[in-house]
Each structure stands twice: as C-alpha cells, then as structure tokens.
C-alpha cells in the first residue's frame, strides 16, 4: 500500500552535502512512507547514491535534517549500529564478505551485531536463501557464484537483519540484461511479500518506471520532480526530466503568440496542458510514440517530412524524419507490425501529425 497517511519512515528536509567545495546535494527534501517503493533516478554524478548513503549515514551530510526509522540521523548520534541494523542495504558491486560462506554472509549481521543465537540465525538465513532461490549455494564462497547469484546473496543479507527499510544502491547495474529483468521482478515480489519500504537508486529509466510507486528524478544534486511513474512520464516538470525518462524530441522555438510556438518556419499549436507558453524562448517536446501517421486530424500540427532512415528495435521501429522548415531531425516510433505497412522508403516524403495535446513546452534551457 502506498497511502500517504501516517508518519513517513524516512523524512529528509533541506539536505545539503558537500565534498570539499563541490556541493553534491542541494536542499533535498523527500518523504518515504511505510510500504513505499521510491526510486531515486538520475544520471551518473547526479548525487542519487550519495542521497541514500546519507540515510544510514555511510556519508555525512552538512545541512538539513534526516529522520529514518524513528531516529534522527546526525554526527553525534549514539548507537548508529542499531539504526543501521534496522536498514538493509544492497550495493551496486555486492560488497559480499569474500572470506565467509553465503550462510555466514547472512548470519554476520544477526550474530555479530545483534547477538542472535547462531542456530536461529542460520535457520533465518536458510529461509531467506530459499526466498531468493539459491538455497543450494549456502555453503559456497561468494567468488564461486555468478553475478546474479551474488546479488541475490546481497539481497538476502540485507533482508536477513529484518530491516524496517531497504536501501538498494543500483542493485542491478552490474548484472547482465536477461538476469536483470528476472531479478527486477523478484525484487518486486519480495517487496510485496515482506512489505518492506524500499528506496532504490538507479540510472536506468526502465528500472525506475517498472519498480517505483514514486520516482524522484535528481539532477546535479537537486530533485527535479517527484511523482508517480505515469505522472512523470506524461507530465515531466522540466526538459531534463522529459529527456531522462523515455525518449523525447526537442525543438527550440519562440513563443510569439500565446498558445503557439514558432520553430523555424513552422508554427506549433499547444494545448492548455502543454505548459506555460506566453512569450519568450521555449523548448517544445513530444514523445516519438505520439506521432500520428497520415491522419489529417484537426487537433494536430501537420509536419511534412522526409524520411531519413529507420532502426528496427524488435517490437517497435524507430524512424528518423526531417521536417520541412524546422531544419532538425526527430524520431517517430511505431509498432513494427504497423511500420511494415507504413514504412516510408528512405528519402520518401510523408506527412505526420504531432498532436497539440501531447506537446510539452518548457522554458529554454540555458546552453
């Protein structure tokens, strides 16, 4: 359940973090509610990992407040290990203990930190190894496992301390594509089964869209937008968010008449939902899948184009078009089955429509 009722389990207020002169996090505020699945995503170097590492204080922050699992996180806090024992963490490069067996990796926290009896911890460990589907690897050492199996161990290790909260720092980035998809589904299943609140960091947009009930898009240490995946995809708050999640076509234009943006020799009509469009330099954006083919519909912006090439991507085909009067190519995507019929030859002229309702308008980014 993702209801925003009750107190947040993580509350970050006005967080600042510096590495020397460099400010890695700028005034970050974020609430995570019990049972929530929040994904923090952004490009590399955006500060997304730093943010979740501040939550269990693997990193020190310099300003703002963090509360996690009922404790205020700060430099002088007593018994930080109790807070950390309440927060499971999975690292991008696994960080398994190479000198310990898989079972010992799982019992390390409970036995050596919390004083759980060895036998009990081993029983719990077996349970979690079954849950991550590698019970047969219990007595092996990490180096004997594949990347996917190692990450399963890391996941089980994080869950074996029965955390109130799970932090996943790019857990799937070091794993090959096929295994990644399967693990992604399994992590979702585990989240559902244990009802554990999760904060995950990723730079992979697909991962963000599939695994989150809320996404926080972070760029240059600043949160650009927080919202449900659908909301962020459909109504990106900035050109950066629009570009980062999904594919987007961008044209720079000038808004001379309210509701219309002039790009080169073409006028693009926008809808009320497109965004602020009342003068000045703007960037308009539309998704490749929203391009309509040969429909003379009234609500759209007709574009006469020359087809410049196509990329077959399996289920969809991506077609590169150059619009007359705009002077820039853009991308249209359509299901490959449909593309087989409509596909223009290279150099052929086609007319497509960019619906006004799907057009987004952003203030022009400073170059």
């Amino acid at each position, binding site marked *: 359940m993702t209801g925003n009722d009750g107190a947040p389990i993580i509350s970050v207020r006005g967080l600042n973090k510096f590495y020397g002169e460099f400010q890695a996090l700028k005034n970050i505020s974020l609430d995570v509610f019990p049972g929530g699945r929040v994904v923090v995503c952004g490009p590399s170097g955006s500060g997304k990992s730093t943010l979740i590492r501040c939550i*269990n204080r*693997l990193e020190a922050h310099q300003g703002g407040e963090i509360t996690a699992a009922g404790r205020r996180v700060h430099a002088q806090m007593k018994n930080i*290990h*109790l807070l*950390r*024992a309440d*927060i*499971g*963490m999975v*690292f991008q*490069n696994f*960080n*398994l*203990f*190479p*000198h310990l067996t898989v079972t010992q990796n799982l019992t*390390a*926290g409970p036995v*050596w*930190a*919390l004083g759980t009896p060895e036998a009990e911890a081993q029983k719990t460990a077996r349970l979690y190894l079954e849950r991550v589907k590698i019970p047969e690897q219990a007595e092996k*050492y990490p*180096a004997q496992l594949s990347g996917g199996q190692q990450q399963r161990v890391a996941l089980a*290790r*994080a869950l074996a*301390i029965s955390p109130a909260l799970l932090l996943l720092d790019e857990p799937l980035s070091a794993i090959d594509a096929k295994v990644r998809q399967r693990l992604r589904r399994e992590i979702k299943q585990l989240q559902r089964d244990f009802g554990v609140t999760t904060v995950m960091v990723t730079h992979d947009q697909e991962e963000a869209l599939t695994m989150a009930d809320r996404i926080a898009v972070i760029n240059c240490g600043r949160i650009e937008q927080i919202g449900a995946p659908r909301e962020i995809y459909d109504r990106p708050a900035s050109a950066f968010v629009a570009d980062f999640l999904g594919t987007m076509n961008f044209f720079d234009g000038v808004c001379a008449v309210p509701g219309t943006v002039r790009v080169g020799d073409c006028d693009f009509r926008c809808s009320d939902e497109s965004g602020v469009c009342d003068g000045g330099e703007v960037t308009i954006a539309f998704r490749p899948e929203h391009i309509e083919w040969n429909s003379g519909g009234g609500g759209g912006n007709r574009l006469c184009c020359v087809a410049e090439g196509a990329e077959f991507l399996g289920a969809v085909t991506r077609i590169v078009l150059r619009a007359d009067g705009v002077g820039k190519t853009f991308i249209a995507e359509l299901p490959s089955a449909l593309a087989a019929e409509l596909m223009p030859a290279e150099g052929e002229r086609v007319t497509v429509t960019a619906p006004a309702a799907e057009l987004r308008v952003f203030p022009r980014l400073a170059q």
Partner: protein
Amino acid sequence: MHADTVVSDPLIQKPRIAAAVLTAAFAAFFFLNFADTSFGRMLAETTGGGDSFARAGAALALALLFVGNLVLISFFPVRIQIIAVWLELAALFAAFFLVFDLNAMFIQSKLWFLISRGLTTTLYVSAAAISIAFVIAVAGAIAKLSGNGFAVAIASFYTSFFRGLPLLMQVYLIYLGLPQLGFVVGAVPAGIAALSLCYGAYMTEIFRAGIESIPKGQWEASRAVGLRFGAIMRRIILPQAAPVVIPPTGNQFIAMLKDSSLVSVIGVWELMFLSRTLGTKTFQHMEMLITVAVIYWILTMALEVVQARIEGHYRARR
C-alpha cells in the same frame, strides 16, 4: 608473472647465444685466474706449457664445463632442471666448506648441545618475540589508522624510533639502559623485548598496508548490517588482511630468526653465542660457525615450507 602460451627453445640452445655465454665465461674465468689451482698446475705440468698457457687452458676447460652443463640441463623438464641446479650449487657450497678441512669429530661432539641448548633458545626467543610483535603490530596499525591524535603520534613515533635505530643498539639500550631506570631485566627477557619491539615496528607497517588493502566497500557493508568497530576488525577486515599480511610477516619471522643472533651480545645462550664460545677453547671457530650456519639455513628452509603451506591455504579460498 603469467607465462605466455607460446613456447620457444631455451636460449642456451641457440648456437650464437651459447657461443656468447662461452666467451663471457672464458673471459671471466681467465680474469679470475685458475692457473695457481691444483687443476691449473696439473695442466701446466702435463702439457708442459707455461703459466699463461695453464691460465688460458684452465679457463677454457671450466668455461666448456659450465656451458656444457647449461646446455645439458636445458633439455630436461623444469622440475628436473630446478633440482639439478640446486644439487650442483649445494655441492659447490659443500666443496667450499670442505676447503676448511673441518674436524667432523669435534662437530659431532658439540652438535647435540648446539641443538638442545642453542637451537631451542633461538627458537623460543624468536617465537616469543614474533608473537608479541604480532600483537604490537595489530595495535600499532589500528592506532596509525585511527585518526586519534594521541594514538597516531605514539604509533608513528614508535615505528620511527624502532625502525630508525640499529637492532644491536636497541638490544644494548634495553639490557643496559633499563637498569638505569631501576628495572633490572634478565638477558632473555631483554632480548625478547628488543626483538619484539623492533619487529613490531616493521610489522606495524605491514599490517597497516594490509588493513588499507581491504576495499572501503567491506567496511560499508559491515556497517550496513550493524557491525561495530571491534567486530568489523575481528570478523571482516583482519581475516581478509591475513592473506595479504602473511607473506611479508613470514619474511619478517625468517629475518628475526637470524637477527635473534644479535642477542648473543648480552649473553643469551642461543645458537650464535654457543657457536662463538664452544670453539674458542680449541680455536675451532670455523667448525662451529659453519655448523650453526647450516642449522640456521635448514631452519629457514623449513619455515619457507610452512609459509608456502599457509599461503596455499589462503589462496585455495579465493
């Protein structure tokens, strides 16, 4: 080093290389001048040539023997090559020792005492010192990495002092200096103290490097499951540092075994002390020195085997 998969003939089997080595060997042997050895004199007599003829002849014969030996050995598999060269070198050394015309009876009469008294003393002084040095090194390494001003200062002053002074001087300082402060220490405890303090200083650096070699992710992962400093050190960091630390620590132990001879100066009855005293009465210094040298050597070889076993044990787990 990682061997390539391409195999080439041994260099020495190539005629030009063999010829070059032969020339170099001839030049070296000619320069060393074996004309005055029994072999050279025999050559001079049988051929009737002069001194310079004997010198060149002896050099040529030895050079041919040397290169012939190399070529011959190069045809065998690597294991046999190693054994053959070891045996040849050992034979040369044995021949060198035989030159002294040692009295075997005398060695035999003293050998048991050398082993029962000298060797055991050397061993237990070294073992005690390395154990204490080990504890000092762990504490010193943690202190150096701690970020606590006092700890860092004390540890770095300690390593600087004990690495900066000759061990012999430390032995004297402890044995002769401590009584000045009112602490009278026996020769054996003083020797053990000097050795463990000195080697503790070297091993502090080894352990520091070993601890630092463990990636930061291991610390983070241990903290993330709730471990505290003591548990992280004992359960996660030190066990992983062990394989890194053991080879150089083994070297230190072997070095210490021989440096323990320095405590002979304060009258500890270990190998070196006995080797000097036992031969004095009858002026048979060489017998005792060479016997003790061989004992040290055998001891070191045994330790090398032990060290290789331990390293192998850790390598198997990777």
